[in-house]
């Protein structure tokens, strides 16, 4: 078990900068998730820690060892790869035992190695597959074998690169629960890479959100969900996607209001504390989750009205997409709501849940 520390790490590939002055510390025994869209530098970060990629600026420490000069074999990290990287010519048992038979892991008898590999397999519920070849396994089974191979020795840190990204949706839910359980029992430091916000929120002790190679926000899952640091984070976390509306704030007679395309919303006083330094007059981007926006078919007199752009029924409610000129506003409605495209709908905002951001990227419809 050890901490993992990155200090001002910059990594370039030719002219593109993959990691830009990246710093964070992952504590001992922590489940630490690197989260971000593709191309944010998540996998590159893991590969630098593992030593698969090298030549970077800054320092990477595992515990208090600077691993910059250490070859992969000396770093004592275990990694589960996105494509599982199982050795196709070995059985499951041989795959799992492979790290224990390495020249660096001497001191075990053959029987002990087998015993240990069997234990790791049992732990992941693949004890019955030991004699199979990787080609005979399903995706979920391969993923477990690759985890078992990582778990079989006692590394300082586990690096898991989207280990469950390629499983189908149902399997992913159970794999997630499984992973959480394993992480809990191991108590070892885990660095986890994902682009699925459910995995990030569900598994992590802390989440580090990466954007173009730098930290956009770092915090506990609840903090990140409740207080996204930027419109980028708000956009990334949550499904359906958080509504972002560009507009401005005005103040008249002590009362604040928000003016956007097709919308003029009086802001309750509760919003004052959430303005994040945005004052009257300036441009602002308002973020509000679809669950905090309710659509009323027919509409009430005092609510703003918007035309329906599309209706999507999920398992337990309806998502009403409304035409907001340059963008789309998504609202929730009861499941039985019947609406046609173009129908006017009254929209009620729970503005005390709204976030106010600086605009950092362009929106599109």
């Amino acid at each position: 078990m050890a901490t993992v520390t990155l200090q001002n790490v910059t990594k370039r590939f030719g002219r593109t900068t993959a990691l830009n002055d990246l710093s964070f510390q992952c504590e001992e025994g922590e489940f630490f998730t690197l989260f971000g869209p593709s191309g944010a530098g998540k996998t590159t970060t893991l590969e630098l820690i593992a030593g698969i990629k090298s030549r970077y600026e800054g320092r990477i420490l595992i515990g208090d060892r600077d691993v910059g000069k250490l070859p992969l074999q000396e770093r004592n990290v275990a990694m589960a790869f996105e494509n599982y990287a199982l050795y196709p010519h070995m059985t499951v048992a041989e795959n799992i035992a492979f790290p224990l038979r390495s020249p660096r892991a001497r001191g075990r008898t053959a029987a002990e190695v087998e015993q240990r590999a069997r234990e790791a397999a049992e732990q992941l519920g693949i004890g019955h597959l030991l004699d199979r070849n990787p080609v005979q396994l399903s995706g979920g089974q391969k993923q477990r074998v690759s985890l078992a191979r990582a778990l079989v020795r006692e590394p300082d840190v586990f690096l898991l690169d989207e280990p469950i990204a390629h499983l189908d949706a149902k399997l992913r839910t159970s794999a997630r629960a499984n992973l959480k359980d394993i992480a809990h029992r191991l108590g070892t430091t885990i660095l986890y890479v994902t682009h699925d916000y459910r995995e990030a929120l569900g598994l992590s002790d802390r989440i580090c959100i990466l954007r173009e190679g730098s930290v956009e926000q770092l915090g506990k899952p609840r903090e990140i969900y409740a207080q996204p640091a930027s419109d980028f984070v708000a956009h990334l976390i949550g499904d359906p996607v958080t509504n972002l509306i560009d507009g401005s704030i005005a103040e008249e007679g002590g009362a604040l209001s928000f003016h956007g395309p097709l919308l003029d919303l009086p802001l309750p006083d509760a919003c004052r504390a959430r303005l994040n330094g945005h004052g009257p007059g300036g441009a602002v981007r308002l973020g509000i989750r679809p669950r905090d926006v309710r659509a009323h078919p027919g509409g009430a007199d005092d609510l703003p009205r918007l035309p329906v752009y599309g209706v999507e029924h999920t398992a337990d409610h309806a998502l009403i997409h409304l035409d907001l000129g340059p963008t789309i506003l998504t609202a929730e409605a009861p499941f039985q709501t019947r609406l046609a495209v173009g129908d006017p709908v009254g929209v009620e905002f729970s503005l005390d849940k709204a976030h106010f951001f600086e605009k950092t990227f362009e929106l599109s419809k």
Partner: protein
Amino acid sequence: MLRKSLFWLAIAIILFAFTFPVFWVYVTSLKSPDDIFGTGLIFKPTLYNYEYIINVRPALNELLNSLIVSIASTAVVMAISVPAAYSFARFNTGNGHILFITISTRMFPGVVAAIPFFIAFRDLGLLDTHLGLTLLYVYFNMSFATFLLYGFFKEIPASLEYAAMLDGYSRIDILRKIVFPLIKPGVAITTMFCLIWSWNEFLYAFLFTRRIARTASVGLSTFWGSVEIQWGPMAAFMGIAILPTLLAAWLMQRHIVRGLTFGAVKG
């Protein structure tokens, strides 16, 4: 039903096209000169033609030459191509330029290089020598073998090697325990292609050898004289000359099937 019978008809035609020449060669080699030109299907088998190519016009030397040149050139090619292909596939050595140059030697017809090679070989005293022909075959097979092996190495995901490194293995160990076992079918196929190609090669063997290093493929053509064609002895010689390739195909069958479905190995 019609579909099925059409399928089997097509199979039968293909099978006939491929096996009949082989059948014809062996049957003709067992016929006496009179039977070869006879119209009856029944004939009395004789070993006359085989005796002919052992005693009257010995062919053993030419077969030996083919064997020496094929094995020597293939051994050299593999010794160079395996590491070269690995290096191209894994480390992108030369940013693709060297690989391109390697392949470009196959982009012109082989005969184009014949005259410059001939002049150079004449000056170097390499005409009609085993070494000369071996060098030529190395030149021709190496580009092909490197490119073929490059494809096979590319099929092995780099993450396998990284996984093994993180598992604590050195590069040499990884070559031994991961890369080589996975590349074996590819190496087998490439070796076989090189062997068969060198064994069958005619043009360069014909131009660059005369007596001492003459190979079986050139030797066979000598039965085709200006006055007559010695069908019988030629068929006997042919029957022996195609044996190694038939044997190689049979031996490597398992590997070929594995090699052609190599993509299935991927995790």
